[in-house]
């Protein structure tokens, strides 16, 4: 249990998927101008990582990992190289399923997330979560926590950024830095703040 909590804290703060591993930057930079949409996108990303990371874990461990096909009588098979294709397919499929389910049961959430759902497929944070899960050899329950934590971390970063950008509207930014440049520097300062959590281990 303590281990799970520490994975959660780690994935939200110290190893924040956006601020420490730079994943999901594209959509982060393009929508962080608006607080409302940032929050919507953050929720959608959390939702999808929480579902896809465990789904990919199951696929990886029962189909792709070295020796995983032993149940089918093929103990020497190693399909690990197929994981990129399979993971991206799972993510695309899952996003589609999630979209249909939300559409059927919660019209309000569906219209709030709107265009962002399909865009999530190409968000590096999601594929990154699945790949890190394989690389760090997480167990199933650790993967669930890690997927959820990564999503929350991403949500936190994008909402914080959107809030800062609203304040920055009244600031006098040097001309060459306006737009993209100042965003990167603000992100750098935010990343520094998040790193202060590094001392906390459970």
């Amino acid at each position: 249990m303590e281990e799970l909590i520490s994975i959660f804290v780690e994935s939200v703060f110290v190893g924040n998927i956006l601020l420490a591993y730079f994943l999901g930057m594209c959509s982060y930079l393009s929508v962080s101008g608006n607080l409302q949409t940032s929050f919507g996108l953050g929720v959608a990303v959390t939702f999808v990582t929480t579902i896809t990371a465990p789904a990919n874990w199951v696929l990886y461990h029962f189909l792709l990992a070295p020796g995983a096909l032993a149940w089918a009588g093929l103990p020497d098979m190693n399909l690990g190289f197929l994981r990129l294709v399979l993971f991206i397919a799972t993510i695309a499929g899952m996003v589609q399923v999630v979209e249909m389910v939300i559409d059927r049961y919660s019209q309000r959430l569906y219209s709030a997330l709107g265009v962002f759902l399909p865009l999530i497929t190409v968000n590096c944070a999601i594929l990154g979560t699945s790949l890190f899960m394989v690389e760090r050899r997480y167990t199933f329950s650790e993967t669930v926590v890690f997927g959820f934590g990564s999503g929350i971390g991403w949500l936190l970063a994008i909402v914080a950024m959107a809030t800062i950008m609203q304040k920055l509207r009244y600031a006098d930014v040097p001309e060459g830095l306006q737009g993209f440049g100042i965003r990167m520097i603000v992100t750098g300062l935010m990343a520094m703040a998040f790193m202060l959590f590094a001392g906390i281990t459970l």
Partner: protein
Amino acid sequence: MGLLAKSQTYRAISEALWQNNPISKQILGICSALAVTVQLNTAIVMSLALTFVVAFSNLTISLLRHQIPRNIRIIVEVAVIATLVILADEFLRAFMFDISKQLSVFVGLIITNCIVMGRAETFAMGNPPWRSFVDGVANGVGYGSILIGVAFFRELFGSGKLLGFSVIPASFYEAGYQDMGLMVLAPGAFIMIGLFVWLEHALLKEKK
């Protein structure tokens, strides 16, 4: 006609390298750009891998562009890109295992790199194979130029080395010079890119 093709090819190259650089102007592909820039050699290998993927995905998709049905083009594009990324990944694992370990998941993440997808979608779908291929190479180099530039300064200031060799003389350290720990960490990359963009804006403005 030959001259025209040449000038169009030329324009595609110069746009990708400078006026429309994928990273600093179009803000694409940052995801993987920053994590691999702690050292110069990982940045170079990453740039080569991306150039390979974007050039050949442009070529393949451009060759197939009349066969691909409009509705499922995204899936076809992802399939082509994923295959090329797997090739690059397996190649690095076989021949450059150490660097492949350092790059960890970031080679795989080329799949979701917006540059590759963006070029396939906007350029390769509407242009002949040769020009698409050149456009892909130019975009890869444009991406690489920023990546290598950032990596150069991060490695130089962060650990006093270039490509693993110490370049800052020992006498500097004796005189009290210290490596900047910040540059090795994530925030250094963000700030470095911000400064790069500033520099580029300033230079482009002077030219106008």
